[in-house]
């Protein structure tokens, strides 16, 4: 053994020479010299670079991952497991497992740690294969997305065409039923007049559904634009109230309005916001108990207005609330009349409100009524 004292792990008690200089300066091999207690006396360049630590003077455990309990060199040396492994915490953050050969050196030990090349090769192959599989799966996913997009466009096209073609005959049925009720009812029995009323009501409902289909197909196809103008919230509420007044009167439901004077002047597409209000009001009337009261209110917020319609109906359970604003989720709430809705009204309302830069909300508990509403920015949105 040489008496020279190289700076690396070989010294002061270790050997020296060109081979050792390679180990100390260049090799991708961890070489550390420790004393009997596991204190690091010297470490080569690779060990320091790998861990990002100076290492000398620190316990061997300092370069390892912290698992349960502190690392003990005597315990580790006494463990019969082979190959000896050390899980090193690297400077890059990814742990690395080293296979370690231990050689006695002076009063302590020299530890030579290397990565298991075969394991690395297997790992690399597996990662590459998994990446290929993932790429193929995302290719299939992109393809399926494109096909779904095409099918959705086809659905909207069909919906729009069907609704467009049905609207005229439905309107004719409605008009002639009304004409017959007005002009020919005298010659009919009470039962026959009842039939005509049923035809009129059904045709009216059918036209409403067809209008919803048309709205949805336009919105989904992206052919939905806003004509933003100045409008008075009170006028919009009044127009909606007039539209639902007949059905409210039929069920004896009263509509009470209390609007905040500060938030009435809006920059909105008036007819569309009126459509939202009509939808909320007619839902509230339909879900109210007979002889109940529907309350319309508004409050000016800092830069927005909050508008709501409240009823004393059966209310909405929490798990149903999330689906209320989705198209065709009409099974979510049964009307007071027991009739099922196709569930487009709220989906359309939401699209209109969101197009204005606002949002819809619902507050309700089963058994204690429901409060539906929207918040609109006062500047008309972006």
């Amino acid at each position, binding site marked *: 053994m040489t008496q020279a004292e190289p700076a690396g792990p070989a010294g002061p008690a270790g050997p020296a020479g060109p081979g050792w200089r390679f180990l100390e300066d260049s090799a991708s091999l961890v070489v550390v010299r420790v004393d009997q207690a596991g204190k690091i006396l010297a470490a080569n360049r690779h060990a320091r670079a790998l861990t990002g630590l100076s290492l000398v003077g620190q316990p061997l455990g300092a370069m390892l991952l912290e698992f349960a309990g502190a690392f003990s060199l005597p315990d580790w040396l006494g463990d019969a497991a082979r190959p000896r492994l050390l899980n090193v915490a690297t400077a890059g953050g990814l742990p690395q497992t080293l296979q370690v050969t231990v050689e006695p050196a002076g009063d302590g030990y020299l530890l030579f740690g290397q990565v298991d090349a075969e394991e690395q090769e297997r790992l690399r192959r597996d990662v590459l294969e998994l*990446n290929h599989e993932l790429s*193929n799966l995302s290719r299939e996913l992109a393809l399926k997305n494109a096909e779904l997009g095409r099918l959705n466009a086809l659905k909207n096209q069909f919906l729009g065409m069907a609704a467009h073609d049905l609207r005229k005959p439905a309107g004719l049925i409605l008009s002639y039923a009304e004409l017959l009720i007005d002009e020919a009812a005298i010659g009919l029995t009470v039962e026959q007049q009842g039939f005509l009323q049923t035809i009129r009501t059904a045709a009216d409902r059918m036209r409403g559904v067809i209008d919803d289909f048309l709205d949805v197909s336009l919105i989904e196809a992206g052919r939905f634009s806003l004509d933003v103008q100045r409008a008075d919230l009170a006028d919009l509420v009044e127009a909606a109230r007039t539209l639902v007044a007949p059905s409210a009167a039929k069920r004896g439901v009263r509509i009470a309005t209390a609007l905040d004077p500060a938030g009435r002047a809006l920059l909105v597409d008036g007819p569309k916001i009126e459509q939202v209000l009509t939808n909320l009001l007619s839902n509230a009337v339909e879900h109210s108990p007979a002889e109940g009261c529907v309350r319309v209110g508004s409050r000016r917020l800092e830069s927005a207005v909050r508008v709501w319609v409240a009823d004393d109906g059966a209310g909405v359970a929490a798990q149903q609330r999330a689906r209320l604003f989705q198209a065709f989720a009409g099974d979510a709430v049964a009307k007071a009349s027991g009739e099922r809705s196709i569930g487009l009204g709220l989906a359309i309302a939401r699209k209109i409100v969101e197009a204005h830069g606002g949002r819809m909300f619902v507050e309700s508990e089963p058994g204690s009524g429901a409060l539906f509403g929207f918040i609109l920015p006062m500047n008309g949105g972006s």
Partner: protein
Amino acid sequence: MQTAEPVLTELVYEEYLAALLAGDRARCTALVEELLAADVGLKDLYVHLFQRALYRVGELWERQRVSVAVEHLATAITERLLTLVQARVFSGATREHAIIIACVANEYHDLGGRMVADLCELQGWRGFFLGADTPLPDLLRLIEEQRPALVGLSLSIYFNMPALLEALDAVTAAHPDLPILVGGQAFRWTGLPAAAAYPNVSLIASLNELEQRLVAYDAG
């Protein structure tokens, strides 16, 4: 109307290649996103950026200039970038005919095959892609299921030629009239051995040639 300047310039290619060799995924992604925003032609992107850069990386690897890790990372980055583009690739296709692209058994270099399948989609075909190391029974089963107009087999390692010939034998035995295209890096310096034995098999030397074949098929 102004004449559009080509967006995929030599400068962009050089910058992309440098980023790819450095394993700089973020820079490569940014460059591709810029090109997509500038409405680069998708075929140009595949052929003049992805393929060209990968061929260059492969060449540097063969000359011992870059490590296999660099080559693998460049492949993985390109695969990741393809997912950015694929939504556009699939959005326009009409898919009247189907083509099945597969890498034969033991072939793990599947990126070329996937790009070929995507380019078929751009041509309006439904490009099924079976991926690396396709077991022969899986290939035969998909052919039965989908009844494609064409089958394309990719081979990048010449020493896997026996697996390719085995696949050709099996496919032609089951579907004697089904045209089969073969191609890939394995054919850079050689043709198809015993080509005369496979009258329905054509060697496709380039993506342009493939495109011509698809157009010719469409034209009847």
